[in-house]
């Protein structure tokens, strides 16, 4: 079990190295906890004044104020008590920073393209804060302050995804945000036939399901071992009590043997066999976490056949938290998705945008129709690096085709944060949360960002 380390650094000198090199030991459930930021005494306090504070989707405060220090939101309200030396930042709107639920920003490109990833491959181990800085800057300028990035983007198992911050210093916000799969997509220019795609979908379900007996065997073993330990301890006590007698008997036996001129043979000692420990399997340990809903499972899947197969193969895993990616032909399954509370991360694409065959039939109305059917919609830029900055525009395209503005805003903020288990720390403008905020000159989706607060820094745009 290891704790999540979050290091949004304030200055390079104050940067405490985050233990990105985390290890997966065993299958013990992992808690998602964010550690406090580096506290710098002389860090300034900021007072944000806005005509509209968008606290959460559908909840706003007119003429409100937000107090920020050390990268944390201290207070939100119509008027908040601010120290005299607080720096005042003004704007039309202030809202939570956007999060791209489907990107590969901030990681080594070769790791994104890698096809040999497995369940224990960690996106956090390919984080690169040194190159491609301009993409981070562009994303930040568009108000995208968090991105769920993924190595092994097109591999059948991409491994553990991470949530990264686009702050100037860069940071890993969460190093085990999800376990990622793809199903029936084009890999290296080839897409399998329908049978390949269905069998891929089946194998995702059975792989995840294999984690359940694995964990069960570990638990059973621990109980069996405790029982055996207890029994054997009692037995040893008995043996110790009987030792004098046993020794006398043995001495007699030796004497006898000598008299007869035979070789003395020790009595055979018998005891209950110790239970055998199941062999450790780090992959299955990750699948167990997924099967038990400790981390969400993201599956990129588009066609109806593989969607049907995937939903069927995961139907017996009640605790699994499945999230669909792309899901071009999801509408026939909308009812089931809504009933099983499976969110869909859509990728609204402009016409003529090059796309693989699985996107054939893509239309911008999908997000709105899914919303109408009661499915939770999230929005991603499609696993790209350069496209992250387009996220608000993509959301607007979905809005233009029927998605409600509230749902679009939710998709970019608290919806995405909740889907990846960081909803308690990000996604809304509430006291106690991280101050990943955008100050805009208009409404959240159509206004231009004038300031962003990220990683404890105020960045003027």
């Amino acid at each position, binding site marked *: 079990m290891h704790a999540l380390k979050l290091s949004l650094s304030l200055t390079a000198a104050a940067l405490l*190295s985050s233990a990105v090199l985390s290890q997966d030991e065993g299958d013990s459930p992992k808690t998602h906890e964010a550690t406090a930021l580096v506290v710098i005494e002389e860090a300034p306090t900021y007072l944000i004044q806005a005509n509209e504070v968008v606290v959460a989707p559908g909840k706003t405060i007119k003429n409100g104020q937000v107090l920020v220090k050390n990268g944390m939101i201290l207070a939100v309200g119509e008027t908040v008590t601010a120290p005299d030396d607080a720096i005042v930042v003004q704007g039309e709107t202030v809202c939570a920073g956007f999060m791209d639920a489907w990107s590969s920003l901030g990681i080594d490109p070769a*790791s994104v393209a*890698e096809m040999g990833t497995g369940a224990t491959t960690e996106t956090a181990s390919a984080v690169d804060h*040194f190159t491609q800085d*301009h993409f981070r800057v562009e994303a930040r300028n568009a108000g995208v302050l968090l991105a769920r990035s993924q190595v092994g983007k097109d591999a059948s198992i991409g491994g553990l995804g991470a949530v990264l911050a686009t702050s100037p210093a860069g940071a890993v916000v969460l190093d085990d945000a999800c376990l990622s799969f793809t199903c029936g997509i084009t890999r290296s220019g080839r897409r399998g036939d329908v049978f390949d795609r269905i069998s891929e979908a089946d194998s995702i379900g059975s792989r995840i399901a294999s984690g359940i007996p694995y964990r069960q065997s570990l638990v059973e073993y621990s109980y069996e071992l405790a029982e055996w330990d207890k029994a054997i301890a009692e037995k*040893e006590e008995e*043996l110790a009590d009987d030792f004098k007698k046993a020794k006398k008997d*043995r001495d007699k036996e030796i004497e006898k043997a000598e008299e007869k001129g035979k070789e003395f043979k020790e009595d055979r*000692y018998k005891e209950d066999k110790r239970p055998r420990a199941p062999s450790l399997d780090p992959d299955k340990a990750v699948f167990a976490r997924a099967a038990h809903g400790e981390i969400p499972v993201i599956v990129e899947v588009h066609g109806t056949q593989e969607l049907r197969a995937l939903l069927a193969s995961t139907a017996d895993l009640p605790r699994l938290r499945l999230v669909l990616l792309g899901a071009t032909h999801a509408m026939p399954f909308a009812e089931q998705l809504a009933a099983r509370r499976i969110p869909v991360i859509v990728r609204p694409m402009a016409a003529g945008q090059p796309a693989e065959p699985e996107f054939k039939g893509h239309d911008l109305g999908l997000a709105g129709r899914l919303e109408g059917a009661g499915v939770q919609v999230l929005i991603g830029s499609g696993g790209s690096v350069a496209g992250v900055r387009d996220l608000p525009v993509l959301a607007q395209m979905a809005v233009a085709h029927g998605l409600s503005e509230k749902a679009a805003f939710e998709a970019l903020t608290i919806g995405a944060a909740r889907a990846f288990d960081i909803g308690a720390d990000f996604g809304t403008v509430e006291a106690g949360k991280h101050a990943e905020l955008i100050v805009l000159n208009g409404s959240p989706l159509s206004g231009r960002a004038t300031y962003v607060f990220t990683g404890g820094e105020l960045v003027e745009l």
Partner: protein
Amino acid sequence: MSLLRNRTLVPIAASFLFGILPSASAAASDTVVIEAGRIITQAGDDIIDGVIVITDGRISAIGAAADIETPWDAPVMGGPDYTAFPGFVEAHTNRGMDRPNENLDVTPFLNVRDSIDPVNAYFEDCKRWGVTTLNVQQGNNTVVAGNGRIVKPVGVTVEEMTIRPDFGYKISLAPKGGKSRATQRQTLNRTFNDLRDNLTNMVESAKQDEDFARREALGQGRERDADEGEGRAMLGTGWTVDGLEMVKRSSIDEKVLPLLEMVEGRHRTFIYCGAPMDVQPAIDFATMNGLLGTATLVVDDSCWKAADAIKASGMSVILDSNMLHIERDPVTEEETETFVPSVYAEKGIPFALTSANQSTNSLWFQAALCVGYGMDRGAALAAVTTTPADLLGLGEVVGSLEVGHAGNVLLLSGDPLDMTSWVEYTVIDGEKIYDRSKDIRNKHLLYGVEPRGATAIESDASETPSDIEVDGVDKPTDEATEEEVTEEHADGHGDDHGDEKEVEETVKKD
């Protein structure tokens, strides 16, 4: 009586050897005296008109000629025209082996001993360019590589060349061929996680055996025999497995043992970073596994960007041979040049330079380049002598000319950073192992002198029967003719030898 005989015979024997065989090695004598117009000691001020006395391979005295009493009977090398300088120390190289890397990811059970080729031309070049100490490690295209060793470029067997056997391991954070950074790190993490699991299992099974044996003895009414020899408890600053003393070290697999000893801090590690993004993970990896005290970072030219993290870790670096990092801004296309060693010098991070190739861009070229880019001369020279020596734990042995240090001395024709300087003599452990006036390859390349043997058949042409001279026309048909040819060659050698003496004189005049 015998004592007297020894005293008289040694000098006689020595003079006999030197008189008759001018090329005979100075090692025949216990003591060698090196004279130089200037000695750059790398341990304080230069010495003008100095002498170095080397006894039994080690420097026994060094100082101004006026202050040092030299044994009257010791052979003398050098003279007022020469500059003496400590032999260069190559902090890290994968040259001199049949190939630098293996196909397998994790190979700590391999040893470069089995790969070093003592007659590799590289070692000849080392003598020629004054590199007297080399840390041979496997290449960077690995996850965990085999065991390295420190050698000198002298000897016909690896054992003869060895200064420190079984020295250090290479670990790479940059992706090995066919991997990406994510999968490279996955393999590396799993290697050390497996190590811990393995050791834990061994301890567990040893405990079980011991418990069973105790119960068995109780049940049988038998007093137990005293315990046999046990293993050692695990050391290490990163993590340890309790109870390892129950496991005999000799029972641990050869694939596991080197890794265990690494974590225990018994081996040096050289951790390669191929990009700045590898540096923090490398430091984290070293910290987690208790390698901080024994690891040195081997960094590529772009890693200067992570210099602050390196500084904070307290680790030293071995630099890539490419010292000028050029980067193009992806937006403005503007090029930025960074002279990498200067960054480390300014941050106060100990750094060693490495050769770009085995001859022309060797260590003194690299040091001179540093000075050309404005680095302090002392810092540049230290980066090819004392710093690498310290990095290899040989600071008390090589890298500077001091009493007690190995007698590794270069006699240069001028300043070590002057592009017109030559290594005239290379002395290792008091033994003259290179003499430029006898360097056949140099003479061939610079003065067009054909090496002995290369022209043997041509020069003997007039004396050779015409029917066997032309290859392929009339080949010798019987054994008798072949023998004749061999004899001709043998004669030819004698003639050549004479020619070469003349050549040597010409070279010296030049």
